[in-house]
């Protein structure tokens, strides 16, 4: 098992450097991430993604979760998790088709039990929204009876990243609460490039950079009850609340010009300040564990994007609509039988989720349907709950009507979860 983890971390280090390299190459995600501060992310773990749920009512003792702070007080293990996402987008619109891909580090989280199975501390770094788009178009402007033909490219990266320190408190066997304040960083960068086929006009790239910081708060609640329909069953009801996050953001545009005889980076226009906000989010879900080998969840989250602000673009702001996410999934744990069969060494997940989208473009909401499945490997060491979780998702987003883009998304998500025993020296072999 140790060799496996070494292999994994070697690969992940390779992934990490590869991520940076690929971003430099301009690999991109969804074109719809151009709006506002980017496409909102759920930050659920790989196994939660595999189940199609958000993670509001579901927890796994072998891995921490970001979705509901109420879970952080449960369990005796220290947990560290890193999530990695790869997505391939097949895109098409009324005129063209193509593909792009995006590989990125998703989130990092560590949960430490301050008081075993009662009070836990979580430290997390994760993206709340992500911009990652790369859109080309061919344009023509008529001037004085002749055409000016040029290629336009807009490449955007960035989004809101949160550094979060929170507490989870298991009040009793039935009730747990959680609170997570966070410091949010807004960093957006867009390069708008013009390449003219007529060499008389200089090619130009304008970099637009938006920065801002804010503090945000979220809360979690978990209600748990055993033995309702059977002796072994457990039912968990979770709820989360994230308060709106308000940024006083600044925007600056720069480009490169020849001034005098030198090439200089100069500021275009004047720096602007504007209000940007992320909306109120509320989520709820129910997970049912009839026995130790099977569980199912159904969850829902609503986000009040219609009340969100994006002061740098009224058209972006007016595109925001309330977002609702529904998830339904189950999980099967044959490994708990301790069978020697190969396929019994994993846990299996499957689910479906539906996202109404947070924007309405050209009078059409950008909806996403995800079909997902996954498997996880638990450490055979009884003193450890370390695990790998791998999920595979296939998503249907958008449409080619209304001048929109239809995306078919194939995603692979990996969560690497390390537990307390990985960090303690054994006193006895």
């Amino acid at each position: 098992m140790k060799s496996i983890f070494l292999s994994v971390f070697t690969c992940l280090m390779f992934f990490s450097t590869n991520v940076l390299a690929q971003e430099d190459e301009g690999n991109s995600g969804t074109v719809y991430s151009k709006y506002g501060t980017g496409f909102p992310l759920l930050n659920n773990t790989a196994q939660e993604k595999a189940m199609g749920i958000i993670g509001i009512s579901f927890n796994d003792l072998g891995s921490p979760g970001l979705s509901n702070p109420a879970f952080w007080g449960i369990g005796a293990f220290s947990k560290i998790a890193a999530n990695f996402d790869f997505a391939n987008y097949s895109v098409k619109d009324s005129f063209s088709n193509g593909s792009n891909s995006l590989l990125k580090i998703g989130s990092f989280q560590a949960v430490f039990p301050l008081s075993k199975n009662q009070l836990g501390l979580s430290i997390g770094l994760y993206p709340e929204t992500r911009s990652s788009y790369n859109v080309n178009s061919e344009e023509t402007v008529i001037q004085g009876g002749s055409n000016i033909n040029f290629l336009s490219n807009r490449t955007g990266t960035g989004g809101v990243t949160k550094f979060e320190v929170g507490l989870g408190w298991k009040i009793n066997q039935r009730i747990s609460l959680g609170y997570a304040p966070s410091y949010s960083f807004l960093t957006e960068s867009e390069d708008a490039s013009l390449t003219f086929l007529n060499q008389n006009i200089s090619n130009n790239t304008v970099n637009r950079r938006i920065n801002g910081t804010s503090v945000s708060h979220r809360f979690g609640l978990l209600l748990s009850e055993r033995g309702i329909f059977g002796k072994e069953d457990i039912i968990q009801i979770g709820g989360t609340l994230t308060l709106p996050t308000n940024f006083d953001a600044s925007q600056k545009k720069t480009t490169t010009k020849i001034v005098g005889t030198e090439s200089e980076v100069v500021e275009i226009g004047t720096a602007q300040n504007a209000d940007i906000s992320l909306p109120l989010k509320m989520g709820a879900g129910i997970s049912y564990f009839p026995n130790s080998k099977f569980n199912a969840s159904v969850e829902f989250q609503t986000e009040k994007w219609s009340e969100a602000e994006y002061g740098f673009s009224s058209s972006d702001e007016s595109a925001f609509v309330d977002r609702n996410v529904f998830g339904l999934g189950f999980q099967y744990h044959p490994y708990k039988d301790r069978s020697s069969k190969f396929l019994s060494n994993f846990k299996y997940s499957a689910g479906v989720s539906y996202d109404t989208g947070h924007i309405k473009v050209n009078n059409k909401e950008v909806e996403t349907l995800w079909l997902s499945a996954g498997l996880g490997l638990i450490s055979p060491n009884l003193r450890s709950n370390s695990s790998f979780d791998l999920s595979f998702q296939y998503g249907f987003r958008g449409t080619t009507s209304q001048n929109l883009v239809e995306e078919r998304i194939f995603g692979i998500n990996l969560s690497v979860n390390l537990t307390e025993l990985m960090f303690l020296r054994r006193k006895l072999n």
Partner: protein
Amino acid sequence: MQKSISKVAFTWRLILSVLVVSSLISCENSNTVGGGVVDSAGIRIDTVSIPDFQQNGSDIFSGKLQSLPIGEYNDPLYGSSRSIAYFKPSLGPARDASLSLLSDFILKLQINNNLHYGDTSQVANYSVYKVTERWRGNTISSTDNISFDTSELLGSFSYQNEDSVSITLSQSLLEEYAEYVNNDSSNVDSLYNFEFFGIAIVPDNVSAQIIYPNIIGSEFLTIRRSTQDSVSINLQDYAFTLDRQNTPMFPNRLYLNNYLESFYSINFETVANNLSNENILRAELVLYEDADQISTSLPQNHIRPETRFLDLKFASESELRYDLQFTTTDFVGVLDTTDNTFRFNVTNHINNYIFGSPDERELYLNINPNGGIFNSTILFDNTSTAAMRPKLILTIEE
């Protein structure tokens, strides 16, 4: 159990390898999908009127240019021009050969026969006289007057359309020149410079054509009559003067010529100040030539060198004439015959105003003196019809 774990480990390694490889082979397929969702980076075109052009006048340094205009022509559009050329042979090569008085003294002129200015159907007649005052090609100006002695004709020639002409000069000039050539004294060079002033080629009053001898290929020759041995003598100095009459006035037009009788200054500071921090991708000064008036003003068989380039350059006030004539232009406007415009790319100059502080602000619009070939043109000015006025066309990123 251990065997099973090894299989699992192998499975995970396989999965991770697939992930790594897939991430490596996944790449962006450049496409234009998304134009309906993400607005393109765009441009807009603004047209800006430019401030008044300030007319200036001067003359040019007319010595040591590549071509020497000789002749007289009364241009129906631009007025009368009478140009006299001055030549002085060098002393060196003839001294080596010891000049015999039994020789012919000849001036050979290589003519740019595709650059005539005037009536090509008539023969132009020229006379050669002795110059009677000292002049230097490095300092002479086109409006200077250099005296010559018309009482003694040293030679003459007629020209219509030849590639070159050879003018046999008088025996008296040969003898005067030979005094210096055959003089062994140490101060002969100084004496030659201060006492021998060369010849003037003067168009007859009935001439209606200006020709342009090319200095490259033009020379003095002495040919010994007995042996026909010839000695080539370089031109030590050469220049021309220009007498203008009936200089024109063009209402609603900008009038330019390359002997600097009329040129203009222009300043873009006011325009640039209204473009605060705009992202100017191209700033193009467009000037419209009055092609109709230019082309219809010449009688049949009359020709005029075309003006195909205009200069827009910075120049120092103290060295204005020199800078306009001899320094490299900062912006060049090439005639676009499809719409009869001269277009100057002044993008960097405008951006210097917007993002910096230009060291030089005053620009001068003129026709390059072009080695002595006369060029003129007229352009529509700020009082002309709106479509033809000088303008600055700005391509702006937005």
